């Protein structure tokens, strides 16, 4: 029976439209995955020696922060790991035992990248431990840790989509983390002995293994119970409220499109994820401005940060204009819609998003001084004046249909990479960095700001020209775009 399932999986994989369409992309994705694997492997081997050089006992330190590692893993899984429910419906009416269906689906999650990746960290680390004389008990520790990773996998299956449970858990952990950082309360004092015990004793490692088995059993049970069309597999539909946003009526056609876009952002998983990501981008600057990473201290990288902080929404939303409307693109193309106004309304939406992000980012002023905030403001001006146009130009060529109901591919969408988009990305980031650098070295930081800001304003002046160009692209690409949007992945 499993043979059948595996053969079906293989066919689904090789016959998906994206597989045949872009081998180059698959190779790039493979390279990306390989990069992560290599990073983890190197980290696994090196962390022992790094910690030893710092004067810390390696195993004890790893155990100390293990709790955060595991929680972090769960968080990432929550957002990005796909749940195995998607294609069960066709099997329900066939003479296949339900338990086999569930075992297969759960088994599929076990070989997911999210689990395998950790092995690339832990195996080298354990090997180093053994070689360094920690003895074969390290293997027990390793088995315990891997069992915990797998428990995470099944815990995610159980709590996925239950936002209340997840966010409560997350806030508790964040609170504990902050408490530890500021020295109030150290949770790791309590958790460290447990992880250490998996190495130190001969029996403690069995506990996580039992946990893994238990979580598998619970998720199996939960899954099986929910394997019918009126409960677990039922299409979840939210209760809808008709919202008329009459305050937008004063803006005419622009208002009409803005109304739709606001509803698009509010009511769809995929677009909501974009908004959350944009919000997180605002904090990206912390990496740069807190001197946390040495490589980021030069002025060019700081401009890079300035652009990213206010540009989150612009980049994540803008690159998919008009793909957001792919599901009803045929409607948009056959109705009395002036492309100009459509493009204009999307532009205004991005501007509003950027301004809001810049305002929220004003906390940088409080904590880091006005110069840092100037970087952000100047970055925002450049974003509004130049990057908004570039992003929409790029989007006009990317013909990927977007399924608004699926949240999964929001981050690092493989289909978003194509040569044209990458080429357009260069002026988005490199040009302002260069401008600032030139101004900074030749004159002063203030002149550097001025250069970037002036570039932004100049870009703004070209708005009509760019809009006309984008309109032309929409028109020439119309047929290809409609055909591409009809592809279901």
């Amino acid at each position, binding site marked *: 029976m499993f043979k059948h399932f595996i053969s079906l999986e293989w066919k689904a994989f090789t016959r998906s439209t994206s597989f045949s369409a872009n081998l180059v992309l698959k190779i790039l994705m493979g390279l990306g995955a390989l990069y992560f694997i290599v990073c983890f492997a190197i980290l696994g081997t090196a962390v022992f020696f790094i910690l030893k050089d710092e004067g810390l006992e390696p195993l004890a330190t790893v155990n100390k922060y293990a709790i955060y590692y595991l929680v972090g893993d769960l968080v990432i899984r929550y957002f990005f790991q796909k749940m195995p429910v998607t294609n069960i419906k066709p099997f329900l009416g066939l003479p296949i035992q339900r338990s086999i269906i569930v075992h297969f689906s759960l088994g599929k999650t076990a070989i997911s990248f999210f689990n395998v990746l950790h092995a690339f960290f832990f195996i080298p680390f354990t090997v180093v431990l053994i070689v360094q004389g920690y003895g074969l008990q390290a293997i027990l520790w390793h088995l315990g840790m891997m069992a915990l990773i797998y428990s995470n996998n099944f815990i995610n299956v159980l709590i996925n989509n239950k936002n209340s449970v997840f966010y409560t858990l997350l806030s508790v952990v964040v609170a504990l983390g902050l408490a530890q950082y500021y020295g109030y309360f150290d949770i790791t004092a309590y958790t460290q002995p447990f992880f250490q015990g998996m190495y130190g004793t001969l029996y403690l490692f069995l506990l996580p293994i039992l946990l893994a088995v238990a979580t598998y059993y619970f998720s199996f049970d939960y899954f099986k119970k929910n394997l019918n069309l009126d409960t677990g597999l039922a299409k979840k*539909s939210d209760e*809808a*409220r*008709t919202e*008329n946003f009459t305050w937008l009526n004063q803006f005419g056609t622009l208002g009409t499109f803005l109304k*739709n876009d606001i*509803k698009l952002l509010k009511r769809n998983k995929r677009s909501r994820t974009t908004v959350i990501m944009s919000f997180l981008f605002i904090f990206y600057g912390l990496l740069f401005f807190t001197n946390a990473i040495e490589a980021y201290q030069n002025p060019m990288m700081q401009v890079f940060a300035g652009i990213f902080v206010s540009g989150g929404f612009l980049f994540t939303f803008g690159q998919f204009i008009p793909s957001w409307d792919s*599901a*009803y693109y*045929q409607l948009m193309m056959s109705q009395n819609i002036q492309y100009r106004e459509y493009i204009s309304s999307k532009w205004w939406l991005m501007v509003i998003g950027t301004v809001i992000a810049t305002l929220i980012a004003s906390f940088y002023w409080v904590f880091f001084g006005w110069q840092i905030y100037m970087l952000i403001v100047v970055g925002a001006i450049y974003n509004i004046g130049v990057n908004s146009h570039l992003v929409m130009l790029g989007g006009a060529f990317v013909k990927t249909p977007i399924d608004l109901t699926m949240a999964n591919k929001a981050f690092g969408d493989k289909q978003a990479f194509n040569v044209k988009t990458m080429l357009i990305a260069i002026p988005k980031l490199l040009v302002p960095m260069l401008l600032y650098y030139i101004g900074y070295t030749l004159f002063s930081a203030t002149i550097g700001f001025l250069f970037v800001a002036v570039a932004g304003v100049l870009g703004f002046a070209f708005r009509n020209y760019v809009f006309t160009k984008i309109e032309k692209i929409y028109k020439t690409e119309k047929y290809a775009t409609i055909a591409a949007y009809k592809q279901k992945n």
Partner: protein
Amino acid sequence: MIQVTNLTKRYTAERTVLNIQNLDIPKGQSFGLVGNNGAGKTTFFSLLLDLIQPSTGYIKNTNVQVDSSEAWKPFTSAFIDESFLIGYLTAEEYFYFVGDLRGQNKADVDALLKKHEEFFNGEILNSKKYLRDLSKGNMKKVGIIATLIGSPEVVILDEPFANLDPTTVHRLKTIIKELAQDPNVTVLVSSHDLVHTVEVCNRIVALHLGEVVKDIQTSPETLKELEAFFAV
């Protein structure tokens, strides 16, 4: 009125899916398009709405060539399939949106919705559901009524009778007949159902493998004629 000149669509050298040398649909006609699967009905409508590119030839909608100008859009409305609905809007929001695009204010749209209240059977307005969560039949109802907003002069419906329950089919036929009687409105309907098509259309064209094989003004014998033709 619709004028088709030398229209062909082919996807590969061997596969010509549509080949219509000449077809004239005068204003005010109620035009029915029938044919088996793959006959080219949806292809024809897609070409008419400039959603796909003709391989040769062109279509003129009220003297506007559809693939070179957009002037036909203000007075043309269509419902082909689900991709003409915006899934994350409620039915009312969708109607108001279409109304906005056709220069109708909220009151106008409300008046039209009130007129067709029976058609909705109480399941669509105030239903607290987004369009994506409605049943297929209800989605179709929304799409069909949306084509009536703004008194368009050309109404295109692709297989409107499919997936509708018997009562709704009856009500839909009333709606289409009403449109057919308006000399200002040209209605184009495609269908697999010969009986319904014969009832609501005053001219029927049958397509087979992309070519026009029958072009008749509807009369009492039309149904028998068509059934005989398709009973191969």
